[in-house]
């Protein structure tokens, strides 16, 4: 992705406008049931099949708060270093929209569960702290289907399965100054939410949605400039595209001496443009008031401490530990810790096979490659960590060559057999005895005179081609180090004899 923020420079290479971006992130919590009723939250069920009088907004019903929503919110707040409001209240946010059956959304406006947190993002220039303004609990709305999806020109359709699904809204301070920083923040947030098991963040299911605020101002100015709010951003890609579009649009206006209007704009994925929301300014008057149907929630500090001590290690500290304890490069450690399942898998292999770098290479390289080909996830990898550890231990002992190990790994993936069984079956044990390798090397030297000539004329790199041929001759079983050693010895003899 191009980072427009970094490229908004004038002819002299100086940036003309400082960009300021804040995000609102909505994450659907992975609870079994909705926030205020016992309907399920499963995605993709038949329309309106997961509804009841509470989430349909029938008269006379009472919402009752799901205790896991509170626990998950505490978990996320702890992971984001927030302070807590021990006294929590819910408020009604009033507006009319067909996907909102009660004509209000239950949210937290005056006393959100947590506030003033932060998380780190890692840029090439170093670590940056992005502050969290607040985290609050609220209910999702239903889903509207328009003419484009239904073919009905005169009507829209509504599915209330999503109405009442618990959301955590995380609001950042406007601390980001380029699209690249926003991308890092979104990834870091998603990693944290998934690591803590709070949300599964499936963007194709609308499990993670964004709103972005952006303003541009000439450098050196302190007044942030009019703020444009963008709604309807349902994936990382959309956020990036919409921000890049908005930066270009606002820059153009500012260069032409025009003013940017403070407004809410909608991103349209099809046209790749944002346009002002047509609804009147009045629609923004939400007339929040305390939700009389819910009693106050008082959070016990002991509960916070219990959750704190049960909190899984977070991506950032895991990354640091992997670099330190396993001696991995930051890049490799980042790849492995990007998912909790992958990190756990790695640690289980590394606990048996004590060569952390080899394990890292195989887990992120060969194994990940096969998984990608087979469209599988590390979570349902048919090779267990113990099985991979066995193969890699055989490799490090020299019992199999690296090329054979690759063949064995593929076989293990498909057959479920152990490395040892496959080695025996296919006769893939490594040939490391010199007297077994020497004849093959001699054979290759005798049958490839052209390459040998090149070597003798000083083209030392030619040896690579010969190693490859010996490996092929031995079906990948020869120990490559020994092959190289013997080849060099024989070639040098040949050179001297000329």
């Amino acid at each position, binding site marked *: 992705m191009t980072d427009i923020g970094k490229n908004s420079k004038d002819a002299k290479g100086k940036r003309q406008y400082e960009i300021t971006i804040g995000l609102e992130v909505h994450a659907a919590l992975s609870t079994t049931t909705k926030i205020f009723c016992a309907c399920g939250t499963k995605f993709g069920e038949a329309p309106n099949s997961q509804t*009841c009088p509470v989430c349909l907004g029938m008269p006379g019903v009472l919402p009752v708060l*799901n*205790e896991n929503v509170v626990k998950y919110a505490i978990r996320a707040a702890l992971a984001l270093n927030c302070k807590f409001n021990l006294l929590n*209240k819910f408020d009604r946010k009033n507006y009319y929209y067909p*996907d909102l059956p009660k004509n209000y959304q239950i949210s937290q406006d005056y006393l959100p569960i947590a506030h003033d947190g932060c998380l780190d993002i890692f840029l090439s220039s170093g670590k940056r702290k992005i502050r969290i303004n607040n985290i609050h609990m609220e209910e999702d709305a239903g889903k509207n*289907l328009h003419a484009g999806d239904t073919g009905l020109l005169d009507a829209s359709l509504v599915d209330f399965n999503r109405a009442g699904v618990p959301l955590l809204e995380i609001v950042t301070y406007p601390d980001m100054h380029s699209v690249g920083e926003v991308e890092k923040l979104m990834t870091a947030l998603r990693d944290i939410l998934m690591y803590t098991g709070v949300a599964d963040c499936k963007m194709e299911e609308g499990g993670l949605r964004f709103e972005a605020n952006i303003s541009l101002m000439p450098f050196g100015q302190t007044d942030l400039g009019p703020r444009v709010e963008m709604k309807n951003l349902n994936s990382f890609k959309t956020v990036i595209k919409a921000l890049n579009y908005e930066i270009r649009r606002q820059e153009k206006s500012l260069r032409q001496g025009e003013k940017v209007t403070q407004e809410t704009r909608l991103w349209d994925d099809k046209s790749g443009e944002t346009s002002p929301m047509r609804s009147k300014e009045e629609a923004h008057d939400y007339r929040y008031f305390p939700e009389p149907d819910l009693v106050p929630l008082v959070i016990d500090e002991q509960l916070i401490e219990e959750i704190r001590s049960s909190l899984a290690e977070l991506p950032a500290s895991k990354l640091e530990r992997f670099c330190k304890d396993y001696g991995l490069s930051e890049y490799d450690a980042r790849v492995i810790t990007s998912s909790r399942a992958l990190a756990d898998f790695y640690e289980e292999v590394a606990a048996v096979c004590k060569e952390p770098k080899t394990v890292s290479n195989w887990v992120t390289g060969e194994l990940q490659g096969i998984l990608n080909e087979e469209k599988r996830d590390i979570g349902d990898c048919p090779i267990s960590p113990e099985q991979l550890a066995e193969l890699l231990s055989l490799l490090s002992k020299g019992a199999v060559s690296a090329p054979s190990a690759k063949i064995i790994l593929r076989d293990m993936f498909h057959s479920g057999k152990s490395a040892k069984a496959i080695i025996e079956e296919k006769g893939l044990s490594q040939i490391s005895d010199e007297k077994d390798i020497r004849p093959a090397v001699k054979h290759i030297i005798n049958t490839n005179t052209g390459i040998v000539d090149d070597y003798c004329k000083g083209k030392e790199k030619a040896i690579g081609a010969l190693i490859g041929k010996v490996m092929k001759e031995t079906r990948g079983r020869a120990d490559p180090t020994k092959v190289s050693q013997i080849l060099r010895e024989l070639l040098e003899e040949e050179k001297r004899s000329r």
Partner: protein
Amino acid sequence: MTKITPDVVDHVTKLCRIHLTNEERKKFTEQLNQILTYMDKLNELNTENVEPTSHVVPLENVLRKDALSPSLGSEKALANAPDKHGEYFKVPRIINGTE
């Protein structure tokens, strides 16, 4: 205290999606002003050491376990719908929606 003008009433009725006749508009402007005047009276009380109340029932932490109960199912859910299409609620076409 803010005075309720006919314009404020218009704004609120628009937000509430209700239509008032001219007479009603006049009547409600008056009544809303009376209510706010009464609130002004309450403001005369000294509440310096009183915690703000958000709820009149002396209860807190009413929670439920995250356990599934059967839902209504779409047939029952749609039974009272003014209009439907298959398993969906059908509403007038939404223009310029956020979703």
